[in-house]
């Protein structure tokens, strides 16, 4: 997969994670209703986003270590295997998840909640093949710069010899999280201000199955790219 499609995939995946009620918008709406204050939604979505970001950062760090230990091809196969395993598990046992959190939560607990949700549900893992695909993104950026005759004036961070994949990944994770935050804020806003909770009574879909399917699809893509 080329770099551009990896960036795009991470962006779309961010929006998709934002849609999943289990990733935070529903919790934010509930906290807004509980505190009878729409601003509670915004206040809670920030730590929720940061927790999601942290879960992705852990995956990125693991991939960084993995790159140092194995060939890229083996690492890709490994993530693909992990994705298929988690996806198959979720398909049949999608009700398993972390507990211990109530409705009276502070920002730190929201961060921890979101971190565990994203981690336990493979949100970070889902991003892994695309993070690996980003190697090409830097090359893409450099190629563009070269086309435009700007390669000599590239910032130090983007020079081929100085490129640290973790820096690119940080940017990618940031973009992914921003996309998620945008979608979560939009959905939470629409449910809280416009439609009200009745929409949940007739407009509900089982996101858990779609989620498991997404894990499997991404696992399939990762396999194709691994071989």
């Amino acid at each position, binding site marked *: 997969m080329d770099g551009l499609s990896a960036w795009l995939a991470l962006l779309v995946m961010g929006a998709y994670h934002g849609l999943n009620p289990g*990733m935070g918008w*529903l919790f934010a709406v509930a906290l807004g209703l*509980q505190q009878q204050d729409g601003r509670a939604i915004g206040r809670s979505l920030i730590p929720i986003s940061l927790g999601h970001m942290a879960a992705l950062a852990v995956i990125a760090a693991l991939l960084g270590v993995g790159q140092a230990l194995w060939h890229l091809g083996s690492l890709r196969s490994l993530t693909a295997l992990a994705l298929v395993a988690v996806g198959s598990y979720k398909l049949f*046992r999608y009700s398993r998840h972390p507990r211990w*959190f109530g409705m*009276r939560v502070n920002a730190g607990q929201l961060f921890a909640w979101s971190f565990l949700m994203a981690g336990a*549900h493979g949100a970070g893992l889902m991003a892994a093949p695309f993070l690996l695909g980003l190697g090409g993104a830097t090359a893409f950026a450099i190629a563009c710069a070269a086309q435009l005759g700007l390669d000599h004036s590239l910032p130090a961070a983007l020079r081929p010899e100085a490129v640290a994949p973790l820096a690119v990944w940080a940017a990618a994770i940031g973009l992914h999280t921003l996309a998620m935050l945008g979608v979560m804020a939009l959905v939470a806003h629409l449910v809280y201000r416009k439609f009200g909770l009745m929409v*949940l009574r007739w407009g*509900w879909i089982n996101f858990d199955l779609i989620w498991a399917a997404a894990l499997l699809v991404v696992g399939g893509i990762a396999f194709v790219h691994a071989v």
Partner: protein
Amino acid sequence: MLCPNAAHPHVERRYLVVPGLRSSRVYIIDTKPDPTRPTIVKVIEPEEIAERTGYAKGHTVHCGPDGIYLSALGNPAGDGPGGIFVLDHESFDVLGRWEIDRGDQYLHYDFWWHLGYDTMISSEWGTPKMVENGVQGDLLLGGRYGHQLHIWDLYRRRHRQTIDLGTEHQIALELRPAHDPTKAYGFVNSVVSLKDLSSSIWLWHRHNGEWDAHKVITIPAEPAREEQLPPILKPFKAVPPLVSDIDLSVDDRFLYVACWGTGELQQYDVSDPFAPKLAGSVRIGGIVRGAGHPAVRGELNGGPQMVEVSRDGRRVYFTNSLYLPWDAQFYPAGIRSWMVKLDANPEGGLEFDPRFFVDFGDLRAHQIRLQGGDASSDSYCFP
């Protein structure tokens, strides 16, 4: 079911979970393929419950955070403590005992929660030995039945506080917290006062982080002649209201109170929960009165017992049987079981639906659950 802080917020409302108080079995009944032909899809045997939880004699069921919660009156030997155990809501496997730290709690009956306050509340009836052969006069007069409420941390599963209604107020049963999750109050009924045989309704509420309870309704006993009364009541020359169930409408505006002894269903306007106002009442059955129904001729026995209110608050259903050994003490002639429906005026007031009368004959009808949810199954409703 929708739980905002769970990763899988949505669970289908499909299976009836039916505990057998006598057998300690729990039946899982599938209502989906054809609601008019529900089928038993799983039977949880008492041995499994005893082994995994130490409990027996299941009663109240609520679907809650991360599972299905069931009340158990005690242990397999018939003693306490009673408590709560949890079933997996996908596989219906028995997961275990709920309490991690039960404090001074020993007797158990009902439980429910304030999800917005991470708080569970539980009430007290008696151990299996204290209830399975009817009410024990000596235990009752000795004030040994339950009269306390327990406040729990719902997520840490620990006992936080005990609220004593006073030994005089025997048998604290049904807990009806406000459905609006921003409101931290609810109602509980005490069945009988040792002082004057009255029943009372108490309001619990959160105040400065602690919980407190006050008596807000007293329903007096009605004088009666000795020959009108069953043996257990003859010495008292009065028929107690024996409020055995209450139900709070989903909008938290009306509280329904079933007076099983006197044969009356009362409706209170509880817009101000501290000052309930009687808004409506119907009479049917009763130990002395035996009031009738427009759909049938003659007297009826039993009295209003388990009450259920539709989500829109306009329909009120109830049955007339409490529990076989208790039925026999207060209605020794035997109860002919029925179920009726009332139409509730949204502004207050009740009347019988003259066309709705279900005759169960010798079967004893107890709990009603409405398809799609009702006032005593739906944990919360944001206004």
